[in-house]
């Protein structure tokens, strides 16, 4: 397998609007999701979860469950197959399922019931009774909870940063904003809950495990599970033909997947299906920690920033550390001579937090952009003007030039489209009948990444047709559609001439659909393979010839700071009697390199904006610290934006390409839409009402009284 530095690809199909290749299969119900995947005579698994937050399982009575017709077996820590857990490099503590009697959080898997039907499994699970020896637990992120500095923050960035002397900068400042901003616990809640179908086979070469999983990365799942199962990665085959969203929660396998694999191992040859329930997702499949950002901004009277100090407190789990990188965008968003960031974690006996769309950027930029709004008011400046005055020439964090930083154009274009010029600067100045009306703005940014390791294979099928294979997953983003466009341009053929194969570990290695890096990483590999294929096999290749290649990292990724940028504008109405907040208009203007497919890109950006609106006004997982679990654990009590909440919403982008990051000229677009949106909405509620709410969700009760 060869690594190639691909040449830029001339855009023909790239950039054109194409409807989703899998759209018809999805809307007609022909697309089979993980748990629907046909299997002969499958068994069904149901998880039994701990009802204490910390302690030891002393006794598990499974007699009644086993007596239930249809129940085949009950797995617990005494009888579940053993995992390989002695290698810290390959042992994920979250995945050490059913191996001992320890309970680390409420909702942890303590048993699993295997039955002939899903109903029998569920009923069996309800019949299992557990007795615990409980120990005191910590489940509340309090302002006085002891906190520690992790070694690094997600994925492996420095915990702290120091440039200049923040205290001196603040002392010199004419204007200081010193405030604390909070974000709520949030759960990803993709439409399709986590699910899988798994079969364990014993053949002559030893065990072979096949999964149809709802995941954002088939290769990462195989690579994570295999060593803990004592297997080589190629003995674990994972497919994910259709996935109903993930938002990061399916980025890596979680405990339910491991439980299902263990169960399958006890019934070789039979498929085991597990559908995680919505309620179980609130304990078992990751979430965004609540964050507390203490911000201090010091500026000259004209708004020029002298000091930026961002100190974050957030939560991790005692079972496994996860450090949300909340303050990392603060390191590059604006210029200031004196800058400091800190991350501190409070360790609690709770479920394991994980990635949720734009981890770090979402809560961090939220806090920064409200602080900027407050600074604008303190300086008597228009919030856009304040941002223009603090534009850096180079990346403040690395000193490198940006591969492209057109934040100012995003702000200005947005201001034009939104009619910002007509805005009255004073808050609480516009009423429309029963409503206060206001507008707000925020900047957005998201790092542009291409992950190393993806490979693609191009094969000639004859008659001018090609197979292009990459083990990437389309989690509903449109990757299937866009990768075919990239492949067509890289091969110089029509999109229709490309048979794209994805979502199977039997296909070449591909990285996770995460970090807004999927299209860039997989697309680069496809381009590399296509260009090498042409080099080796020419324009008229014999049927059957094929080439596999990976892309060398674009040198621009080293030379430049690579980020996407955007500006979000929101109009809110706050009801004068009830305090209810509505968002009649939401606009995002983005600089994201070449937009490869305006149809699917628009969906990604609108989806991000919607999720940002949802975070701004609704989303909050309420953990009851007495019990240790989230009690708003369904979609009736965990509110996400409904259709009626999303009114005028628009995403536009600058016409551009970024020549430095990949051969397509594109940057990632999956996450930037959620960044800054909550701040724009919150700032607009301040402008409407004159009431500054420094935590999300911004709920009606904040405005009545």
């Amino acid at each position, binding site marked *: 397998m060869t690594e190639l530095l691909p040449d830029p690809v001339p855009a023909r199909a790239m950039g054109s609007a194409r409807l989703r290749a899998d759209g018809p299969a999805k809307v007609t119900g022909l697309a089979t999701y993980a748990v629907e995947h046909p299997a002969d005579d499958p068994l069904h698994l149901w998880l039994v979860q701990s009802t204490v937050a910390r302690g030891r399982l002393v006794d598990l009575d499974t007699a009644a469950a086993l007596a239930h017709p249809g129940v085949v077996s009950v797995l617990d820590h005494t009888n579940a197959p053993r995992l390989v857990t002695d290698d810290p490099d390959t042992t994920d503590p979250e995945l050490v399922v059913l191996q001992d009697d320890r309970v680390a959080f409420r909702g942890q898997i303590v048993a699993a019931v295997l039955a002939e039907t899903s109903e029998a499994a569920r009923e069996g699970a309800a019949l299992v009774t557990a007795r615990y020896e409980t120990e005191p637990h910590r489940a509340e992120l309090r302002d006085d909870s002891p906190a520690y500095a992790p070694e690094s923050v997600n994925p492996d960035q420095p915990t702290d940063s120091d440039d200049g002397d923040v205290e001196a900068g603040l002392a010199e400042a004419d204007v200081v904003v010193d405030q604390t901003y909070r974000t709520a616990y949030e759960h990803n809640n993709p439409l399709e809950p986590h699910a899988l179908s798994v079969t364990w086979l014993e053949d002559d070469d030893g065990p072979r495990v096949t999964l149809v999983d709802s995941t954002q990365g088939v290769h990462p799942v195989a690579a994570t599970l295999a060593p803990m199962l004592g297997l080589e990665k190629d003995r674990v085959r994972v497919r994910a033909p259709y996935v109903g969203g993930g938002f990061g929660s399916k980025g890596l396998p979680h405990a339910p997947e491991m439980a299902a694999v263990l169960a399958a191992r006890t019934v070789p040859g039979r498929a085991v299906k597990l559908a995680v329930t919505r309620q179980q997702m609130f304990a078992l499949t990751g979430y965004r920690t609540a964050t507390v950002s203490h911000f201090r901004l010091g500026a000259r009277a004209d708004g020029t920033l002298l000091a930026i100090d961002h100190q974050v407190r957030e939560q991790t789990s005692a079972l496994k550390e996860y450090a949300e990188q909340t303050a990392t965008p603060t390191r590059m968003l604006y210029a200031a001579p004196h800058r400091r960031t800190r991350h501190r974690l409070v360790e609690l006996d709770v479920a394991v937090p994980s990635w949720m769309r734009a981890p770090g950027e979402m809560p961090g930029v939220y806090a920064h952009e409200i602080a900027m709004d407050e600074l604008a008011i303190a300086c008597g400046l228009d919030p856009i003007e304040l941002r223009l005055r603090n534009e850096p020439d180079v990346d403040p964090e690395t000193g490198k030039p940006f591969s492209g930083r057109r934040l100012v154009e995003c702000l200005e274009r947005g201001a034009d489209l939104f009619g910002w010029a007509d805005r009255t600067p004073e808050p609480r100045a516009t009423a429309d009948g029963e409503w206060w009306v206001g507008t707000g703005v925020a900047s957005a940014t998201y790092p542009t990444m291409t992950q190393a390791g993806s490979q693609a294979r191009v094969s000639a099928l004859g008659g001018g047709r090609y197979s292009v294979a990459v083990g990437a997953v389309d989690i509903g983003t449109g990757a299937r559609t866009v990768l075919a466009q990239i492949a067509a341009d890289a091969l110089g053929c029509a999109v229709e001439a490309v048979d794209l194969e994805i979502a199977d570990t039997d296909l070449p290695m591909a990285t996770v659909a995460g970090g807004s890096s999927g299209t860039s990483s997989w697309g680069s590999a496809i381009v590399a393979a296509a260009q090498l294929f042409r080099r080796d096999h020419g324009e008229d290749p014999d049927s059957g010839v094929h080439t596999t290649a990976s892309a060398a990292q674009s040198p621009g990724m080293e030379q430049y700071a690579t980020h996407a940028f955007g500006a979000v504008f929101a109009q809110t109405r706050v009801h004068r009697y009830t305090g209810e907040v509505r968002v009649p208009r939401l606009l995002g203007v983005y600089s994201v390199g070449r937009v490869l497919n305006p149809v699917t890109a628009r969906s990604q950006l609108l989806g991000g904006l919607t999720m940002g609106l949802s975070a701004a006004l609704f989303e909050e997982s309420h953990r009851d610290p007495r019990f240790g679990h989230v009690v708003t654990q369904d979609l009736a009590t965990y509110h996400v934006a409904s259709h*009626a909440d999303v009114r005028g919403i628009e995403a536009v982008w600058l016409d551009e390409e970024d020549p430095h990051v990949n051969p397509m000229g594109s940057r990632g677009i999956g996450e930037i839409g959620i960044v800054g949106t909550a701040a724009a909405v919150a700032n607009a509620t301040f402008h409407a009402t004159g009431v500054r709410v420094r935590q999300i969700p911004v709920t009606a009760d904040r405005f009545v009284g």
Partner: protein
Amino acid sequence: MRELAYLRPDDVGAAVAAVTDNPRAQYLGGGTNLVDHLKLGVTSPELLVDVRRLPLDEVEEVAGEDGPVLRVGANVRNSDVAAHPVVRSVFPAVARALLSGASGQIRNQATTAGNLLQRTRCVYFQDVTTPCNKREPGTGCSAIGGYARYNAILGASEACVTTHPSDLAVALAALDATVVVRGAEGERRLPVRELHRLPGDRPEEDTTLAHGELITAVELTAGRLTRRSTYYKARDRASYAFALVSVAGALQLDGDTVTDVRLAWGGVAHRPWRATVAEDALRGSTFSEEAVLAACDRELAAAVTSEDSAFKVPMVRNVSALVLGRLAKEDR
């Protein structure tokens, strides 16, 4: 194994007898609430008596002692009631209340009786791993000191602090609707205001109905006041959310003088809360927003709140002012 028997009689008497005879039997309407509870383990009946074949699906206009009466069969779907022309013109509060509830799909499935008898949405009630006096008497109330955003501020007890979730029930309480009930002993009528109860020390009982009593209809008497009625539900998201607070109001003015008024509150108590103290204060007075707020303050003097539910006091008085203010504008 948990056996669950299922009957679908087409005769009211047979249905009533089947449930009356079995203490672990329950009626099944549209199932949008009960089926969830079966799955969650909140309730485990041994017999379900499906009422949907019973002849209770008509909306009829009949003559009544105090004026024309609209009789809504227990099985009429929420969406059909909301769309009924007489409901829309003569009882607008009822149509608005229904349309503010749940989602289009659920309203198409949910029945009138089922809506009134839906159980609380208290998160602990629905989570069988936590104590709840309503679900399991004597285990304690997790909502006290817990998630309190949807808790009651009026009429709660130490045993239970939850609220009743139905929007329809609030509108019916304001309009003094009557519930027609069939039991083993025959038919009886009760004011809807007497259907739901406060928790006291028996929070497991939501209503005053005896086991086996079947709701067959709801009756609404038309009047000048019912036509001048409306409903407002304050909620976190614009659709598909239960009320933080809601207000059903009706108003009759003579010039600026309040000749008659109805005010019922949702989201504040274990049952729809008729704000009779506020009504009495307003009746005969000169209408103004201040007068409404002052009248609500009297009603709310008894409110007991926690940090997370304190907002309901200003919110419900504001929404009352909003609702009656809108009606006053219409009336002038």
